[in-house]
C-alpha cells in the first residue's frame, strides 16, 4: 500500500475535518452522543497517524497497527463503530495480494460485517445501513475496476445517506440525515478521490440548516471511553459488569485489548470496575450536557431579535439556554428589547412600554423567569416574579476556586435556612460545573440541594444564588 495509503487516509481525514461541524449539527439520533463529527474525526486522526507511522512496514503488520489505532483512538459511539469498520477492512486487506477492485469490495463487506457484529442492538437508517449499501454497490461494480468500485460505493452510499431520513422517525421529524452515516460517506469519498488522483472536493458553501437535536437528553452526563489491556479479557463478561453503570454501552476489541464506551454519571466507577479485567488507560469523559448546550448555541448564532412576551437581559450561552427552556427570550445587554415583561440585572434599563423586573444577579434572573406565567395577568405575574427574585440571595464570586466559593457561601449559610444553591459557572472560570458543584456540596453539607451549570457569562466567574 505504501505511502499511497497514508495519503489516502489523511485525505479522508481532511475531507471529514472540513465537514465535521456539519456532521455535529446533524446529530439528532439514535443516541445522545455528544458531537458525532468531532468523535469520528478524532478517531480518524488516530488512524491517519498510524498509517503515517507505519509506512514501509509489511501489509499485515500495518493492518494490525491501523485496527489497533482505531480501537485505541475511538471516541464516542460513532468513533467506536468507525473503529470496527476499520478493523474489518484492515483484516480483509491484510491478506490481499493486491489492492484491486476485488480487494476493495471484500474490505467494504468485511467492514460492514464487523460493525454489524459489534453493535448489540443495531438500528437501521444509520452508519451500519450505509456501510452495507456501500459493500453491495462495490460488489456489483467489481468488473469496472478499482476506482469505479469506490465511486459506485460512494454514489450508492450517498443515496443511502439521503434515505436515512425516511428510515427513522426522529430523523424524518427533524428533516435531517443520520450524522454518523454522513461522516462515513465523507470519509469514503475522501479515500476514493485520493486513490483516483482527483483533487479534494469543496464542501457546499451553505449546507442546509439543520434543526436542533431532538433526541432525549441522555440520562447520564458523561460520554466516557477507556481502554482495558490485559490477558484473556472476556468481552461479554466485561460488558455485563458495566451494564448497570450507564447506557449506550459498547465494548469492542479482543482478548488483549478492549475499548469501552458508555454514557454514565460516574466515569471513574466504571473504569474501576473494568480494572478487574486489566490495566485501564486513556479514560476520557466528555460532558454531554455542555456539548448539547454548545451545539444549541451554534445553531442559534444568527439570533432572532429580542422581541417576545418575556425578555431576559443576560449574557452567556448556558444562561440563554436555560432562559429559553423557561419560556423567556434571552437578549444580550446591547440588543434593543421589545417585551411585555423584561427581566434585567440591576441597574435595569428604563423601558416605558414594558414591566421591568430588576434583579440582583443571574440566579435571581432565572428564578424570576421561572415564576412568569404566560398568558396570565401580567401585573400578577410580575408581582410573583419580583417575590421569587427577592427570595434568592445573589453572590458574585470573582474567582472560581473552592476557597473563594466557601468564603462567599459561609455568611449566607450561617443562619441554616438555605435549602437550594444555584451556581452558574462563567465562560472563563476554568473549572467544570461538576467540580464547582462538588465544592458547593462539601461546603453546604447535607440538607441543601446544589446545582451548578455552565452559564457561560463573561462575569462573574461564579454567579451564586442561595435560597
Amino acid at each position, binding site marked *: 500500500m505504501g505511502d499511497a495509503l497514508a495519503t489516502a487516509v489523511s485525505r479522508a481525514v481532511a475531507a471529514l475535518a472540513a465537514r465535521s461541524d456539519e456532521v455535529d449539527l446533524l446529530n439528532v439520533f439514535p443516541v445522545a452522543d455528544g458531537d458525532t463529527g468531532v468523535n469520528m474525526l478524532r478517531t480518524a486522526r488516530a488512524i491517519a497517524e498510524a498509517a503515517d507511522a507505519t509506512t514501509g512496514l509489511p501489509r499485515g503488520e500495518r493492518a494490525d497497527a491501523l485496527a489497533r489505532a482505531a480501537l485505541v483512538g475511538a471516541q464516542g459511539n460513532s468513533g467506536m463503530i468507525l473503529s470496527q469498520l476499520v478493523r474489518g477492512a484492515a483484516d480483509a486487506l491484510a491478506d490481499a495480494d493486491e489492492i484491486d477492485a476485488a480487494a476493495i469490495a471484500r474490505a467494504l463487506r468485511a467492514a460492514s460485517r464487523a460493525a454489524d457484529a459489534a453493535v448489540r442492538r443495531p438500528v437501521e437508517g444509520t452508519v451500519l445501513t450505509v456501510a452495507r449499501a456501500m459493500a453491495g454497490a462495490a460488489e456489483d461494480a467489481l468488473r469496472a475496476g478499482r476506482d469505479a468500485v469506490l465511486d459506485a460505493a460512494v454514489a450508492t452510499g450517498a443515496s443511502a445517506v439521503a434515505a436515512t431520513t425516511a428510515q427513522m422517525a426522529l430523523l424524518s421529524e427533524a428533516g435531517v440525515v443520520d450524522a454518523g452515516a454522513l461522516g462515513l460517506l465523507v470519509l469514503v469519498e475522501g479515500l476514493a478521490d485520493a486513490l483516483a488522483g482527483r483533487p479534494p472536493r469543496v464542501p457546499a458553501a451553505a449546507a442546509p440548516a439543520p434543526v436542533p437535536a431532538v433526541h432525549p437528553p441522555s440520562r447520564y452526563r458523561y460520554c466516557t471511553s477507556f481502554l482495558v489491556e490485559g490477558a484473556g479479557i472476556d468481552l461479554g463478561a466485561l460488558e455485563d459488569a458495566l451494564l448497570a453503570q450507564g447506557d449506550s454501552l459498547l465494548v469492542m476489541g479482543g482478548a488483549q485489548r478492549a475499548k469501552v464506551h458508555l454514557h454514565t454519571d460516574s466515569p471513574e466507577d466504571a473504569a474501576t470496575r473494568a480494572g478487574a479485567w486489566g490495566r485501564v488507560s486513556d479514560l476520557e469523559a466528555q460532558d454531554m450536557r455542555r456539548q448539547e448546550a454548545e451545539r444549541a448555541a451554534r445553531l442559534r448564532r444568527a439570533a432572532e431579535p429580542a422581541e417576545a412576551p418575556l425578555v431576559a437581559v443576560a449574557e452567556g450561552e448556558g444562561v440563554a439556554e436555560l432562559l429559553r427552556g423557561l419560556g423567556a427570550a434571552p437578549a444580550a445587554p446591547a440588543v434593543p428589547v421589545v417585551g411585555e415583561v423584561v427581566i434585567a440585572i440591576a441597574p435595569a434599563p428604563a423601558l416605558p412600554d414594558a414591566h421591568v423586573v430588576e434583579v440582583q444577579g443571574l440566579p435571581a434572573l432565572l*428564578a424570576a423567569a*421561572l415564576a412568569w406565567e404566560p398568558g396570565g395577568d401580567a401585573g400578577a405575574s410580575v408581582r410573583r416574579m419580583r417575590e421569587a427574585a427577592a427570595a434568592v440571595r445573589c453572590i458574585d464570586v470573582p474567582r472560581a476556586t473552592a476557597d473563594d466559593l466557601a468564603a462567599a457561601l459561609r455568611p449566607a449559610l450561617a443562619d441554616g435556612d438555605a435549602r437550594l444553591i444555584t451556581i452558574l459557572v462563567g465562560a472563563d472560570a476554568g473549572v467544570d460545573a461538576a467540580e464547582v458543584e462538588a465544592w458547593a456540596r462539601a461546603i453546604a453539607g447535607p440538607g441543601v440541594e446544589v446545582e451548578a451549570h455552565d452559564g457561560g457569562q463573561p462575569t462573574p466567574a461564579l454567579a451564586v444564588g442561595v435560597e
Partner: protein
Amino acid sequence: MDPARRLDAASTALVVDSSSDVPADRRPANWRVVPIPVTVGATTYADGIDLDASTFYALLERADRMPTTSQPSPGLMREAIAGALAEYESAVVLPLSARMSGTVETARAAARELGEDRVLVLESGSVTVALGLLALRLQARLEAGVTAGELSDALARLRRDHRAVFSLETLEYLERGGRIGRAQAVAGSLLRVRPILQIADGEVAPYARVRGAHRVLPAMEDFLLAHSAPDRPLHVALGHTRRPEALPELRSLVARVRPLASIDLESEIGPTVGTHAGPGAFVIAFVADAD
C-alpha cells in the same frame, strides 16, 4: 335510569375502572373494577390483574418507549357491567374523566346495550385517588340509600368541588410523553424545577413550578389552604408513586392545616397517571362533603 329509582349498597354495584387506584382491601363488597389496559413495549397488561404498581414502575424506568394506557375494550366493559347486573339490581358506573379517556363513552355504549333502566353512567371528571375519593363518597350515599337522581346531582357537585394537587419529582416522564418540550425539560431539570399540577376541568393541568424539594410540600399546603374551608368536613385521599415513606408527612400536613379532615384513602398511584408522573410523585385530593 329513572331518577326516582332507589339505589342502595345491597342492591347496587359500583363499577369503577382501575385508574381510581383504590386498593383491593379498601373496596366495598358491591364494587367491581374494570382493568385499564397498559401497554409496555409489545406486551399489554391488565392493570391490577397481571400488573401491580411495583412491576409497572420497574418497567417504566426501564422502558425505551413510553408505556401507554388505553381504554378498556367494549367487550371487557360490557362483561364487567353484565357481571354486576347478574348479582345486583342496578349498576352505577364511574369511569375516569372523559377528558382523559374514552372509557365513559364505552361504558355508555355498554349501558345502552344492557338496558339503561338498570345502569347509570356518571362522568367523574377525575382520575387516580381523586376518582377513588369520589367513588367512596358515592358509596357513602349508597349505604345510606339514595335515588338515582340524587346520586347524579351529588356526583355533579362533587365533580365540581373536588380538588387535587400533584407534585412531580422529575420532568423526565412528562418530556418522554411529549407533555413538555425538550428545552423546557432540560432547563427544568437543571434548575431542579418540581412541577405542581392539579386536576382542573377533568384534566391534569399545570398549577405552578417551584424550585427545589423543600418547596414542594409548602406549595401543596398552599393549594390545600386556598381551595378548602377550615370549618367544613373535608374528605381527603393521599397518593404517591413509589414513596410510601412520605405518607406520614402528607398526613401530618393535612392534620395541621385542616384538623377536621378525615383521610379516607391512601394508595399508590397506578399506571394511568404514573406513566406521565414517574416515580416520586405525590397527590393530595380533597372534597368538602357533609353527607
